[in-house]
């Protein structure tokens, strides 16, 4: 104790470093464990009750017709090995039976009759009470209303089987009307919602009733025959941690695959626990290296610092060691002298180190991890403490032995012999060669795996040591040169720095610490950035709402009402063609989609978006229920393959507001005619577009001739006749192929349209109106499908049909879409096509604004459109952030901060361990008449350049090391389907880390320098002790 009191700051510094090293080592397993528990907690809390429970059931009829007696629920419950039952609440036992009301007519409902243990606690009764005796049932309020099953009423159903094999009739009396309480108790089963519902495949069928509840006695007394028995285990969240979950996964899996020893029918096991356990195990495996390696670098830094500090401290004790040797104590005695002082400090520091680790493991998870993380001190923690103690002992013994082994002659020198030349010491050379070799192998791709996380640290060690060795002679050289030039202050500062062994120490450590700080900051932000971009890619927009409707017109009308400019809302239709590999088509309104959709890394240019624009042509609109048209000067003829004439049918394609095409036949031409008038009823009361003129004939027959259409008139009972001009010819798209022939428009006035057909056996032949796109432009992510020609290809249209398309640009990625996706203009795709029920119609929000969501939801609801689901960027990002990979990287912030603190501690320790010598030097300068201000400058300048050099070298090492390490650092629990990986340096974080390093360490060195200068009193020159 007295020795520690003599040099309290040194003792405190050593203790602090040893405690820090212990804390780093012991914190890693604690945090790793806390992370596992948090992962387990969010996995279990985010899963459905079906996934987190184990349901055992046996329904003999499912597998075998006659499989013996149905086991009791208790027997099923026993199938779960006893060792795992403590992970669950008491099993919920159950029976189920068919309850078809006799006599079984078309008005007699059928459904399930069940009993569950503890059921009365999970039902509310609006009338009557919970069934308690045999034959008593409780029914739903809907059944009361639908079937008149009031309390007191009774029904008859098929009952238990007699000994002679015939079924009896069971009379069930309604004793209560229940309401199901929402809870996990029911394993997600809904008891109601079926009352009165008829399920029919065509033939008349009776209605269903809701689930009826009865007591166990109904089954035990054989009043009814149980169809199945069941036992359900609800997981006990408080009892199940990561160990339990990981054990449960295989156990439940095993249970599902082995034949039970009750009866011969396999027990049906329903549980998602094996999958959950597998997912957790995968994430744990992923983080197994990240956490220890990050903390190991910190440990390494702490050990290196402790080693250097111990070297400095033992160096300072050379006179004491010399004294011990002069008193005949030998090397062993000298070593003991130092160990007696230093070893207790380092070993006792394990205790505060352990406490620090525990405190950090208590605080850090609260900040970084979700939920309330349980705190555990397991054997890895104790092993880490033991390992720390061993390492601390080793480091201390080696450092002490180094001095104790020196010859007395060297120990007695007032100034210890020290190399100030350019040559490297053997140890440094080995460390530099070893660490440098590993870094080179990393850089050349010779090594792989998470161990690459050590690259920044190793690189910094190499750079720091080399720089440290170069700096001392350089400073001496420079200092002498400055002195020769008469620049005393700079010269003395440089020589002071060159003379001090602390300079090398500071450069090496500051380089390493700054490298860790820069790498940590970079890794942290790169991780966050990549998770954010992956989430943005997956979400597509701040909020995406899937609507339960394919009425695109209504949906677009709602959106246009709320957001006419399309700044906040945009409709998107996702067409997924059959087949897993077929690319999706994403139909968007480019003008608003480009504002709302999230494009990590930048979206297409405006020019590219503009290429998606639909044909710039007005549609030919008609409104009415009756259509009239004149067909004049027809020369249309058709010849069969036997060269005989056959009639030609003429028609129009009309597209209603829903995009449905009305293939309307006008009439038939057997031969040329001068004038024909056609009148038809059409379903265009809401308006239709005239999208095509077509002719058809017998398959294989040719068509030739022309016809002039004019006086197209639409009318209805409520709207007057409206003459719609079909011309001019420019409104129509000429159709021509070598194989099929051509259809071409011409017109003499804008009101009429002459269509010339020359078909070579293809029927029908259609000429489309220009408003209808023939080939839609598309932006393409991924390769074009096979079978295309140049940029031409086909995609699946909204109606599921083939839509010719042309690639007008490429995209790296399409938001919220698979890697191979086509983006087209919704307006283009919508023209002439209706939306299939299998298409996903979505509304993308530019902002995750609950008020806007309510507004849209309400407006859609007013039109009878339900919302199927909503996905938010925030939720997806949270799912990425709440992963072991993310939590592991969060530690980087801690590592960077602690690294800087350790470096600061080194500055303090260096000052503390050599302050007597340095202040004596400064006192000598004062004695020589150097003013205190100059001495202060000299004191500050002696350390600050070393810090500056160290921070600069460290920043470069950290940056370069990050480039080596980041590709191997797991950023996600599982890689996103569409990669948005961007591992470029996070310059903001890097700059911040460098500035912080400079501020913390620079300010530290300045303060220390000034403090030393202030102690440069003349009495120091007379100090002997």
């Amino acid at each position, binding site marked *: 104790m007295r020795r520690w009191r*003599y040099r309290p700051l040194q003792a405190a510094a050593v203790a602090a470093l040893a405690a820090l090293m212990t804390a780093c080592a012991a914190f890693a397993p604690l945090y790793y464990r806390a992370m596992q528990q948090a992962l387990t907690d969010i996995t279990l809390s985010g899963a459905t009750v079906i996934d987190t429970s184990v349901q055992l059931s046996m329904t003999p009829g499912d597998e075998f017709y006659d499989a013996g007696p149905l086991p009791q629920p208790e027997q099923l419950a026993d199938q779960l090995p006893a060792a795992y039952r403590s992970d669950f609440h008491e099993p919920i036992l159950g029976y189920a039976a068919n309850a078809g009301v006799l006599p079984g007519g078309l008005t007699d409902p059928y459904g399930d009759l069940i009993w569950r243990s503890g059921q009365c606690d999970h039902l509310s009764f609006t009338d009557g009470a919970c069934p308690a005796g045999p034959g008593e049932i409780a029914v739903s309020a809907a059944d009361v209303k639908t079937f008149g099953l009031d309390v007191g009423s009774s029904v008859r159903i098929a009952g238990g089987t007699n000994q002679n094999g015939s079924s009896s009739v069971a009379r069930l009396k309604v004793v209560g009307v229940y309401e199901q309480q929402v809870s996990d108790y029911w394993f997600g089963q809904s008891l109601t919602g079926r009352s009165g519902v008829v399920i029919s495949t065509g033939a008349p069928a009776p209605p269903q009733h809701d689930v009826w509840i009865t007591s166990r006695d109904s089954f035990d007394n054989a009043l009814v025959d149980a169809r199945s028995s069941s036992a359900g285990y609800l997981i006990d969240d408080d009892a199940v941690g990561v160990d339990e979950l990981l054990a449960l996964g295989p156990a439940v899996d095993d249970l599902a695959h082995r034949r039970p020893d009750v009866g011969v029918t396999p027990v049906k096991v329903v549980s998602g626990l094996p999958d959950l356990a597998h997912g957790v195990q995968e994430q744990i495996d992923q983080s197994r290296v990240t956490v220890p390696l990050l903390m190991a670098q910190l440990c390494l830094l702490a050990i290196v610092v402790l080693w250097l500090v111990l070297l400095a401290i033992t160096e300072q004790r050379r*006179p004491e060691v010399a004294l011990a*040797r*002069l*008193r*005949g104590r*030998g090397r062993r005695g000298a070593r003991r002298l130092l160990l007696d002082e230093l070893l207790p400090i380092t070993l006792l520091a394990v205790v505060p180190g352990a406490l620090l680790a525990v405190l950090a493991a208590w605080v850090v998870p609260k900040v970084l991890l979700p939920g309330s993380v349980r705190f555990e001190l397991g054997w890895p923690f104790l092993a880490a403490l033991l390992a720390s103690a061993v390492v601390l002992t080793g480091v201390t013994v080696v450092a002490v032995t180094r001095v104790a082994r020196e010859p*007395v002659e060297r120990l007695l020198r007032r100034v210890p012999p020290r190399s100030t030349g350019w040559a490297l010491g053997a140890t440094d050379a080995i460390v530099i060669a070893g660490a440098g070799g590993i870094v080179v192998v990393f850089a050349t791709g010779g090594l792989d795996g998470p161990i690459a996380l050590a690259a920044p640290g190793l690189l910094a060690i190499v750079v720091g040591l080399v720089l440290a060795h170069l700096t001392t002679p350089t400073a001496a050289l420079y200092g002498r040169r400055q002195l020769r030039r008469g620049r005393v202050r700079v010269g003395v500062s440089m020589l002071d720095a060159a003379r001090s062994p602390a300079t090398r120490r500071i450069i090496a450590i500051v380089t390493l610490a700054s490298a860790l700080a820069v790498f940590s900051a970079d890794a942290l932000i790169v991780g966050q950035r990549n998770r954010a971009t992956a989430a943005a890619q997956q979400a597509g927009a701040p909020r995406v709402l899937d609507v339960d409707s394919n009425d695109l017109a209504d949906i677009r009308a709602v959106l246009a009402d709320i957001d006419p400019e399309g700044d906040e809302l945009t409709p998107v239709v996702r067409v997924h063609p059959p087949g897993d590999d077929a690319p999706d088509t994403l139909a968007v309104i480019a003008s608003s989609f480009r504002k709302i959709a999230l494009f990590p890394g930048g979206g297409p240019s405006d020019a590219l978006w503009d290429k998606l624009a639909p044909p710039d042509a007005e549609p030919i609109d008609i409104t009415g229920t009756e259509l009239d048209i004149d067909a004049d000067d027809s020369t249309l003829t058709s010849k069969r393959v036997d060269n005989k004439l056959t009639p030609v049918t003429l028609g129009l394609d009309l597209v209603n507001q829903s995009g449905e095409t009305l293939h309307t036949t006008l009439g038939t031409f057997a031969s040329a005619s001068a004038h024909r008038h056609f009148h038809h009823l059409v379903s265009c009361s809401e308006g239709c577009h005239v999208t095509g003129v077509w002719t058809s004939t017998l398959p294989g027959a040719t068509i030739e001739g022309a016809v002039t259409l004019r006086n197209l008139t639409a009318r209805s009972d409520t709207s007057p006749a409206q003459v719609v001009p079909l011309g001019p010819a420019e409104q129509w798209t000429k159709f021509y192929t070598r194989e099929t022939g051509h259809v071409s428009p011409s017109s003499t006035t804008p009101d009429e349209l002459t269509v010339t057909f020359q078909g070579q056996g293809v029927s029908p032949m259609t000429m489309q109106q220009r408003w209808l796109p023939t080939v839609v432009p598309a932006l393409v992510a991924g390769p074009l499908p096979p079978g295309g020609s140049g940029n031409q290809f086909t995609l699946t249209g909204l109606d599921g049909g083939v839509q010719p398309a042309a690639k007008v640009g490429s995209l790296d990625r399409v938001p919220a879409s698979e890697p191979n996706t086509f983006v087209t203009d919704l307006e283009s795709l919508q023209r002439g096509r209706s939306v299939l029920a299998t298409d996903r119609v979505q509304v993308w929000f530019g902002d995750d604004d609950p008020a806007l969501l309510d507004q849209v939801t309400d407006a859609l609801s007013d039109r009878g459109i339900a919302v199927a689901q909503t996905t938010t960027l925030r939720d997806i990002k949270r799912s990425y952030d709440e992963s072991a990979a993310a939590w592991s990287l969060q530690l980087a912030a801690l590592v960077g901060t602690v690294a800087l603190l350790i470096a600061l501690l080194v500055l303090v320790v260096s000052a503390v361990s050599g302050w007597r010598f340095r202040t004596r030097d400064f006192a000598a300068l004062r004695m020589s008449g150097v003013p205190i201000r100059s001495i202060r400058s000299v004191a500050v300048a002696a350390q600050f350049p070393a810090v500056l050099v160290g921070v600069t070298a460290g920043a470069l090492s950290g940056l370069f090391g990050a480039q080596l390490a980041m590709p191997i650092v797991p950023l996600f629990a599982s890689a996103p389907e569409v990669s948005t990986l961007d591992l470029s340096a996070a310059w903001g974080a890097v700059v911040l880390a460098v500035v912080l390093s400079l501020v913390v360490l620079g300010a530290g060195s300045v303060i220390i320098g000034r403090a030393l200068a202030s102690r440069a009193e003349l009495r120091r020159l007379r100090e*002997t002790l």
Partner: protein
Amino acid sequence: MKTTATPRATTGLRVSTQRLVHIYRSEGHEVAALSGVDLEVGAGEMVGLLGPSGAGKSTLLSLLAGVFRPSAGKVFVGQTELSAASPNRLDEMRALEVSLMLQGAGRNLLPYFTPLENVEFAQGAARRAGKELPDPAEVLAAVGLVAEAGRPLGELSPGHLQLAALAVAMAPRPGLLLADEPTSQLEHSARDLVLERMSLLNRELGTTVVLVTHDPDVAAFLPRTITIRDGRVGGEGRSGEEYAVVTPDGFLPLPLHVRENLLPGTLVRFHLGEDGTYTLVQEARDADG
């Protein structure tokens, strides 16, 4: 300040050196600190090594303590040839027989111990070797430190610190005490006190004492002084008289005051007088030699 006390050679060790040479080598330079020192110190003697700075006094002391190994020549302490002793034997010698007092009291004391604890520490190795030693308090009392025995070193005066250093050096009851400038940086009264205690121990315990000094007053206090000059024994003083010492190879270093009057190249001859004394006669030299 003279003493006429005769040293008792009871437990003291005889010290002798033969043609002792020591060369310092550093970064390509070689400096001969000692170039053939022949020295004989009897058991129980108290001898002072004098000489100007850089003459090799401290080097000689370190060689006698076994801290340095000589470049050439031999060192005997008692029956042991230090220059050929193994490291273990040297440790044993330092534990039991030879004590070295370094220049500056602080360098001889563990700073966090009291004088008493320092003495205990200094006795440790000897005690483990089975040597019977007096109680540490007695050791301190022998140098006059009683009240100060348990006080922190920082509270002691320079004189007391030096006495504590002396006590520590004498703690294992060595046969040879080597002291490098034990009275430097001390005021006269403290210096006299330290010398007096050292002399007392020399007399009472018979310890051979070799101390380095360049203080004429200290030299005058000592019964025998040996002057080291240019790495050789340049003279000897006994009871206040200065003598030149003829080396084994017949050289006779001239005393400094004589050398000042004899320029290099001066021819001298020795003239044997009738009373048996030699007279140094300077011969005149003509210009052409």
